[in-house]
């Protein structure tokens, strides 16, 4: 086989197979790096001092009890937090070494590179076709729009189900299909990173399995960060896992989220370094 024509990720996969193991974290480039990240909602510090590196072409999972700030951290990675007026970010988030909160950075451009799939499927109340074509249209992406739409829907494993009804409303699809439509919509803008916030929490097990399979496909082309409250899901799909928890803040009774441990998924689930992580992944802690 001519390895020169293969994409870097496939080459990396081949190397991994030769070694007889999964991708080795630390082998690839860092896409997103958080350094001492703290997020405030008004005076309330929701998370503090988060430092971790997201590596390209891996699936990185954020797990932890609800309210520990997983969503909050995720939304910092593509500046979705800007939409919440009272939210304020301290520390550094860099993307390929560029400070995302630096001077002159346009959040709109950030979101084109770092797409997002939300907890509840939220297709636009428009046709399936328009749902997918909206992003590339406003981004001014060149090329035949029909092709872009088809390709995106194929990548999202939805094409066969909707190819005859592209003019129908995206709302007419089932929950699982809607979520894949949202993934197609995200892919259509040709992002580099896809952020997923509990993308399966509103779906049944079969739809969930489809999305999980899809994620394995997608990681060839994208780097994925997924928030999940489902530990089995994190164990099944992710290469790296970050375990967050909420600790009682110095003052007041509200809890601040902290990063407890970040390592390969295998390590987190089989041999974690922190007792808190072990208690959580073995189900001894809520």
């Amino acid at each position, binding site marked *: 086989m001519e390895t020169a024509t293969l994409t870097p990720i496939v080459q990396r996969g081949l190397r991994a197979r030769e070694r007889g193991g999964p991708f080795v974290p630390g082998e690839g480039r860092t896409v997103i790096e958080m350094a001492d990240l703290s997020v405030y909602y008004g005076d309330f510090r929701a998370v503090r001092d988060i430092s971790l590196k997201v590596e390209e072409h891996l699936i990185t999972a954020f797990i932890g009890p609800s309210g520990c700030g997983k969503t909050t951290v995720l939304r910092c990675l593509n500046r979705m937090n800007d939409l919440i*007026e009272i939210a304020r970010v301290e520390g550094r988030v860099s993307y390929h070494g560029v400070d995302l909160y630096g001077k002159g950075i346009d959040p709109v451009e950030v*979101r084109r590179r770092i797409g997002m799939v939300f907890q509840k499927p939220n297709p*636009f*109340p428009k046709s399936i076709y328009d749902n997918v074509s909206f992003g590339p249209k406003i981004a001014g992406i060149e090329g035949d729009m029909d092709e872009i739409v088809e390709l995106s829907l194929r990548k999202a494993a939805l094409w066969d189900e909707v190819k005859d009804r592209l003019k129908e409303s995206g709302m007419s699809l089932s929950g699982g299909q809607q979520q894949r439509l949202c993934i197609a*919509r995200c892919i*259509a803008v040709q992002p580099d990173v896809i952020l997923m916030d509990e993308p399966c929490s509103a779906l049944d097990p079969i739809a969930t399995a489809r999305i999980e399979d899809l994620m394995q496909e997608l990681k060839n082309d994208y780097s994925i960060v997924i928030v999940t409250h489902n530990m089995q899901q994190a164990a099944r799909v992710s290469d790296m896992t970050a375990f967050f928890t909420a600790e009682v803040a110095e003052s007041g009774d509200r809890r601040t989220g902290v990063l407890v441990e970040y390592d390969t998924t295998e390590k987190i689930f089989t041999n974690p370094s922190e007792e808190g992580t072990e208690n959580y992944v073995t189900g001894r802690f809520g």
Partner: protein
Amino acid sequence: MAISPSTQDVVLARLKGRRVDLKGVLFEALLLLALLLSLSILITLMADVLRGGLGVLTERGFGFLTAGLATFSADTAGVKQGIVGSMLTLVFVVLLAFPLGIGAAVYLEEYAPDTTFTRFINVNIRNLAGVPSIVYGLLGLALFVEVFRPLTGGTTAISGGLTLAVLVLPIVVITAAEALRAVPDSIREAGFGVGATRWEVVRSHVLPSAAPGILTGTVLSISRALGETAPLLLVGAITGYIATGGQSLVEQMRSSFTTLPTVVYSYARLPSQDFREVTSAAIIVLLAVILLVNAIAIVLRNRYERKW
């Protein structure tokens, strides 16, 4: 295992429920009574107007719509100037109050930061919608008739139209703002999530989703403007005779005017029995116009809703 007959009987007895739900039945009856009462008032009103005016309308037909104001003979009295005047003033409502009101609502809901100042403005717009219309008439008199006389020409259709536009402006803002607020945030997030600017999110997703609601608000305000009388009397809507010659549109705008409700008012003041019928006929025309405007807006709204 099959359920033994005795168990079945017990379950059946339990499921069949107990006594008659007296309170529930009574409450339902009361509600129905309220509905019937309001309906009967409406029907009596309509019947009274129809009985009085239908004769004139069937007899004179189209002629009643094209005949001018007349205070001496009921046979020649019509509502032409009223229709023309109402339409002229509506032009101002549509061209001024709608874009201004919707624009203000979009700014307040989609752009303005949530500060004490914007909340203050929100509350005040609500208060403005509750201000009695006669106060707007006084404002129109002071502002459009007096201060801006060189532009409006004094007591003209322009002044009347501007007054109505100001009067319905808060209603347009409030209903549009409510329609925008009803658009779920998840749609905005979806738009921002694929790299849309605020303007793109508003134009492509928020406004289309809110459009039916905004349209309903504009219909309400048109109906309100069509029915207003008191403020127009203050800014000089004529209750007597006015020319119906073949003037140009601009000339008509800058001359004395009357509107359908003011026509009704002027006919209602006349003592003769004949004019009572004319009054009823004019009311029917006014109601028909309002119904027509509503119908058009509903058709438009339905078409818009189905568009995607």
